[in-house]
């Protein structure tokens, strides 16, 4: 069993790189990513798991990084928005006007990207269930819906 007692140095795998960070046991993954690694794409929208702006992928699954302790992320593969390398969902968001202020965008991108990897043929109801984890306050969701539909159901999606 992995234990963190007091201030400790641990290793994380973030965006396919090994990164050493100093943490307190109570540090959330969100704070470690933002404050120690400068990966500020994940946002502290509520720090209560309600808004999804802090979503990252852990072993390919969307996780709200405000609800995960950094210590829990050891040994897992973490992907942040900065680690998306020309994922189709990024262009789909740009081309479909999928954002205005952009603050929720990283979180939505991570959920949509994971959905396209895990359920590339997701039905509408599944897509809605996944995306209901996140809040966008600027758009009407119409644009986000259009963007995610571009990357779902296409057989050549990576």
């Amino acid at each position, binding site marked *: 069993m992995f234990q963190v007692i007091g201030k400790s140095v641990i290793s994380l795998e973030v965006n396919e790189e090994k990164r050493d960070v100093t943490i307190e046991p109570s540090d959330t993954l969100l704070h470690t990513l*933002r*404050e120690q690694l*400068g*990966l*500020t*794409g*994940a*946002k*502290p*929208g*509520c*720090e*209560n*798991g*309600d*808004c999804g*702006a802090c979503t990252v992928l852990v072993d390919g699954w969307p996780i709200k990084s405000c609800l995960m302790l950094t210590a829990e992320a050891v040994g897992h593969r973490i992907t*942040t*928005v*900065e680690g*998306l390398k020309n994922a189709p969902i*990024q*262009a789909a*968001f*740009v081309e479909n*006007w999928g*954002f*205005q*202020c*952009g*603050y*929720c*965008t*990283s979180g939505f*991108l991570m959920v949509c990207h994971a959905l396209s990897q895990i359920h590339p043929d997701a039905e509408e109801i599944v897509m*809605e*269930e996944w*995306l*209901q984890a*996140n*809040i*966008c*306050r*600027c*758009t*009407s*969701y*119409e*644009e*986000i*819906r259009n963007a995610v539909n571009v990357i779902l159901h296409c057989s050549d999606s990576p």
Partner: protein
Amino acid sequence: MNSVGTNIQRQEAWDKVTGRAKYTDDDQITGTLHAKILTSPHAHAEIRSVDIRAASKVPGVKAILTGKDCAILCGDVIEDRPPLAAGKVRYFGEPVALVVAVSEREAMEAANRIAVKYKPLPVVASPSEAILGDAPLVHENLKKYKKAVQDVYPEPDTNIADRIKIRKGDMAKGWQESDVTVEASFQLPKSDHIAMETRAARAEIHPDGQVIITASSQAPFSVKKLLSKSFQLEEGKVTVKTPLVGGGFGGKVPVILEALAYLASKAVDGQAVRIANTREEDMVSAPGRLGLEAKIKLGATKDGYLKAAEMTYLVDTGAYTDIGPRLAKAIAVDCTGPYRIENVWCDAVCVYTNHPYATSFRGFGHTSYTFCVERALDQLAAALGTDPLELRMKNAIIPGDTTPTQVKVTSSSTGNLTACFERLGALIGWKEGARIDLGNGIVRAKGVSGFWKTSNSPTDAISGVLLTFNSDGSINLNSGVVECGPGMKTTLAQILAEKMKMDVSRIHVKLEVDTQVCPEHWKTVASLTTFMAGRAPLKAAEDLIEQVKSIAAVALKCPTEDLEVAEEKVFLKQDPTTYLEFKDLVHGYQYPGGESVGGQIMGRGSHIMSQLTTLDHETGRGKSGPAWAVGAQAVEVEFDTKDFSYRLVRAATVMDAGKVLNPKTSRGLITGGMSMGLGLGSREAFVYDGSGRVENTSLRTYKVLHIGEEPQYLVDFMETPQVDAPYGARGIAEDGIIGIPAALANALSTAARTELNQLPVTPESIWNAKTGGKL
């Protein structure tokens, strides 16, 4: 080469999909201290004592401030709000103390150890209670407060901060001409902006007295002026920087955390201090959306022509005024909605309560009064036995009519509302019937609403643009407009590209605002940016073109009037093959022998609002904004008559945009506003306990619309140009929200066959309205 009218992608689009876009609190600067507020647990209480001894001993604590350490009052209209409560607290969530520490964790721990003793006071829980003669006073010293503007009229020894009166026409005549009258009362709760980025600020004070503020703000120039005024700082020594803003909706206009960050930095010898709200603080400690109570009486002839309107609006500004008196003014100015009514009596009263205070919110009061007027119109249509859409079209404002403040409207100033209603009817299929029984207790129902909106800026609000050329002939555009989502800076680039007849990709926009180098833009609010800031690049472009031509005239040995500019070239009108490229001119022109003339060409454009007046205090006569945006909206629901639940099916907006500058962006702004309107209509409201404490302070208990709950959106635009606006374009960024709660409540009232005059409309509120709450 057209930019206007095309789908130009926002300048910062790729930054926003790669995590590279930086917002205020994304700059993680080592050595920055952290500040945290302690907030009031009471809605109204006397502060008996504040003991900071235990808190001071928490490791890492650098300073603790309380109300006694900053005995000033702030306010944009009435100076009534201390940055930290002193003597008493007036709302749940009011900042009481501020801790500065090495880490946020230590600051929070210390804040929790500050011991405040309170003596609870009776709570003023609604605006109608607040105006009763024996109501407790929220501000005992109202008469001693300084006014920050001339045209505000607080009523001493009451809870009334301002009263705006509209007296138009002859009420006795209006009622005499009316065959049918309806009267109704309305209640709308306070709610919150819920911008996804919570408010944040950073401050540092240099040894020479320079104050550098970075803030998530829609009004960096207000921050500069208000800090300078409140803390007696030389204005030129205050610099405010605003990077991208993660949503504003009006909530990031007031100056709150900026003042606290300044005080915090001052307490630690000017070291850099950051402060960022938690979601809970952002919802109740910071100001939210106004509440409203209203009484409306409308009179019409039996043919359905409106003849008289009597309206009392009580604006719940909460514990402090902030911009509340201006919200009341905005409501008064447009109080009737976009309809021709010759006889109008309206009192819009700005009232203090012990609720969290209110500030600007998308629609600036218009969504609230529109709900009341449009609900009353449906009740009038029922009383007349006429079709609700027809009633609105019959009375829709047209050129030559006058507004409540007696401004005569023109086609340029108000567009074509009748055409909007006609198009809306076709779009939503109005003719198939407002209520259709689908069987099994399910009915499908539609409701409509009209809307209009003008702005309420100061009469001397300004906006400027500076342009510089790069040596490759491309242009840098520098304005004080904040990019908080609507894509305003991209719009400015489009306007400039159109005027310069060049490719918009060759316009480089400075996204961050820095008040030391950017020309002032009053505030990024009021859907005024296209109008105000949009006129500035037109002037600046003329300035550039004139300079380009005068250098080219020398080089090409011709008169300037023979020259034309397009596609980064200046050429002879009579022979376009004789030309010079911008790149060979704009950093000076060099003759073949090496001699040079000219220099870097820079353009400037500045706009000041014109023809606006303050309102006459007795009659309300005056001109508040340059023009109105107008439109018509509809909502269609599927309603279950068995359990009063409902589903949003379709929502439609037809708006006269003057000119659609960017179709996809425009649609997104309208549907975004509609989405927010459906949230207000169906769920969003602060819930209080019996002592005025807000109970739903998180996004788990305060629900906004999520994906899958939205209806199908239908949007269309009319294009009646606003002659004095850039390319005829009206402001549209707020307007999608305005009539939606009304249209939703009209649809549900039709569906449930009961009058739903409160928001939000939930299955429970419908049940209450239908049954009186009896099981």
